[in-house]
């Protein structure tokens, strides 16, 4: 063999790369219950499909004769692979090499991963641990100078973390302690998952302790903190579950904004009518009910994939299928403030509608919204500004839209149920009710003089309430065509499947005018 010596050298260098940060560091990773980056990539990808790029990039040592003695690989491992048969870019931090920090990364590697996703129009999954290639204080000594974040003339990596949100599906997996740039790369995604033993923070406990907060990793950035704050979408027990979530999320999406979401054969009857829906909403208006079983009942069986469950909880968001076609589902959860939109909820709605718009997913909204949240805390958190922002997201989106008014539609948030400037489909359940203001409290405001003048104000209030209640039957609204259709709730699935079929040819496999933000 003419090039035998060189081939052997290549294999030797690859072997160094496979050793990562060395046996001790690998053992420490395993002892902590975590996979190494190479195990992660192999587990996530379809078996044998991972093709690595730049494995032998790293820091080499040579003897006096110039022969290679050692090679510490870069702590960024990336390449392409298939997930359920579809190509994607995988990029992972190797925590066994300098805790994943920048001085061992070779910045061009994570940058090329992002660029490859962008230019080859492929989803990217970031497997993040440590500072995610971010700087460490040590860098000052190794480079002999302090780094001005952002560099000269702009930063390639931050450019692509922004660009890719409007180009390809981006999934972030936080597996371990994730800080600084790692946290930024995790949060700047369409969907993020962490394991419950992981933590994410801008800066970890030692930095925070210097500011007087003595907290453990878990207390500072554990899963309960991050999923409730909306920093991370989902938390799971094991890394394998995190990989399953990533794959499932991607299964509903096109590989890039230049394609349409893939449809699959539907094994559930599109005409299925679920008798339970007739009893799903209680007659007693003060009583709440479970929305998730309603979602499960109307979409293709087993297809609902919830995202961001712990944040902005008066709205449930997730992906699902109708007659095999992928759709974005929003639904109210009356267990949280009766389904009222808090500022958190509004932020969740904005991000979710933007996701649907970016990837050409028709939206289904199962609505039960008594309004924007009211009260001092609601005012303090600028609910109305976040609320009109959510309405703007709805009004600016161009994907097909269908709303089912399940129960309440009140106030300004009551108007936030369909894009304002174009036609969408809308159906009201028999249990639907609406108004500019709830009668309770609304009567006191509007009929103040009449009530005050009455001999028995309480009786007067009750009398007015009874009078108005008679008038607010949804059938009276339908008489004047203020609601176009009232339906038997059991018809919901057939009608939604019909909507998905109608929506099919309206989707356009081209970038939206919207430029998505995290």
């Amino acid at each position: 063999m003419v090039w035998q010596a060189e081939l052997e050298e290549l294999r030797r260098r690859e072997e160094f790369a496979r050793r990562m940060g060395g046996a001790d560091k690998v053992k420490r990773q395993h002892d902590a219950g975590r996979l190494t980056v190479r195990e992660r990539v192999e587990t996530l990808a379809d078996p044998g499909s991972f093709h690595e790029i730049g494995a032998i990039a790293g820091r080499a040592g040579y003897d006096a004769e110039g022969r290679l003695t050692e090679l510490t690989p870069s702590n960024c491992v990336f390449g392409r692979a298939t997930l359920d048969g579809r190509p994607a870019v995988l990029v992972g931090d190797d925590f066994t090499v300098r805790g994943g920090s920048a001085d061992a990364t070779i910045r061009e590697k994570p940058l090329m991963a992002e660029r490859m996703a962008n230019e080859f129009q492929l989803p990217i999954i970031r497997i993040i641990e440590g500072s995610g290639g971010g700087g460490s204080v040590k860098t000052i000594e190794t480079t002999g100078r302090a780094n001005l974040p952002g560099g000269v003339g702009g930063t390639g990596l931050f450019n692509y973390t922004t660009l890719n949100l409007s180009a390809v599906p981006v999934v972030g997996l936080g597996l371990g302690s994730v800080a600084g740039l790692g946290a930024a790369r995790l949060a700047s995604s369409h969907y993020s998952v962490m394991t419950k033993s992981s933590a994410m923070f801008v800066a970890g406990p030692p930095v925070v302790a210097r500011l007087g907060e003595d907290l453990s990793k878990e207390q500072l950035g554990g899963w309960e903190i991050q999923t409730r704050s909306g920093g991370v979408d989902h938390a799971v027990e094991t890394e394998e579950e995190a990989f399953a979530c990533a794959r499932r999320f991607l299964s509903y999406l096109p590989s890039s904004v230049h394609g349409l979401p893939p449809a699959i054969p539907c094994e559930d009857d599109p005409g299925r009518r679920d008798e339970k829906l007739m009893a799903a909403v209680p007659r007693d208006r003060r009583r709440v009910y479970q929305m998730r079983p309603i979602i499960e009942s109307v979409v293709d069986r087993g297809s609902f994939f919830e995202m961001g469950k712990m944040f902005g909880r008066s709205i449930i968001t997730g992906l699902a299928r109708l007659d095999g076609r992928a759709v974005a589902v929003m639904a109210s959860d009356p267990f949280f403030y009766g389904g009222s939109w808090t500022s958190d909820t509004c932020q969740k709605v904005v991000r979710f509608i933007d996701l649907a718009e970016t990837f050409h997913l028709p939206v289904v909204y199962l609505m039960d919204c008594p309004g924007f949240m009211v009260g001092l805390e609601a005012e303090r958190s600028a609910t109305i500004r976040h609320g009109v922002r959510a309405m703007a997201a709805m009004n600016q989106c161009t994907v097909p839209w269908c709303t089912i008014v399940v129960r309440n539609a009140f106030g300004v948030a009551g108007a936030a149920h369909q894009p304002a400037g174009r036609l969408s489909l809308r159906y009201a359940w028999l249990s639907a009710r609406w108004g500019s203001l709830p009668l309770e409290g609304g009567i006191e405001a509007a009929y103040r003089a009449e009530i005050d003048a009455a001999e028995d104000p309480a009786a007067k209030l009750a009398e007015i309430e009874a009078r108005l209640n008679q008038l607010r039957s949804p059938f009276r609204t339908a008489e004047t065509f203020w609601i176009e259709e009232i339906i038997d709730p059991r018809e919901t699935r057939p009608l939604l499947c019909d909507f998905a079929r109608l929506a099919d040819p309206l989707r356009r496999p081209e970038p939206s005018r919207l430029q998505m933000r995290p």
Partner: protein
Amino acid sequence: MAESPVKAEITAAVWKIEAGPGTRVAEGDAILLLESMKMEIPVAAPRSGRVKAVLVAEGDLVEEGQVVATLED
């Protein structure tokens, strides 16, 4: 199993205590009802057991995440 806390998921006023101390509850049973936006929102038992203590009274304002009752076996 030892004592477990029951937390309110939302900030709201306590409307009604449904299961006082000593009551046996199954997972999902309402221990108390909160009132928010004119609706009654149950605070449910996270597991089956006996209500050991209810730490709030009707009319109290509770915060999201606040422990409102405890369960024991």
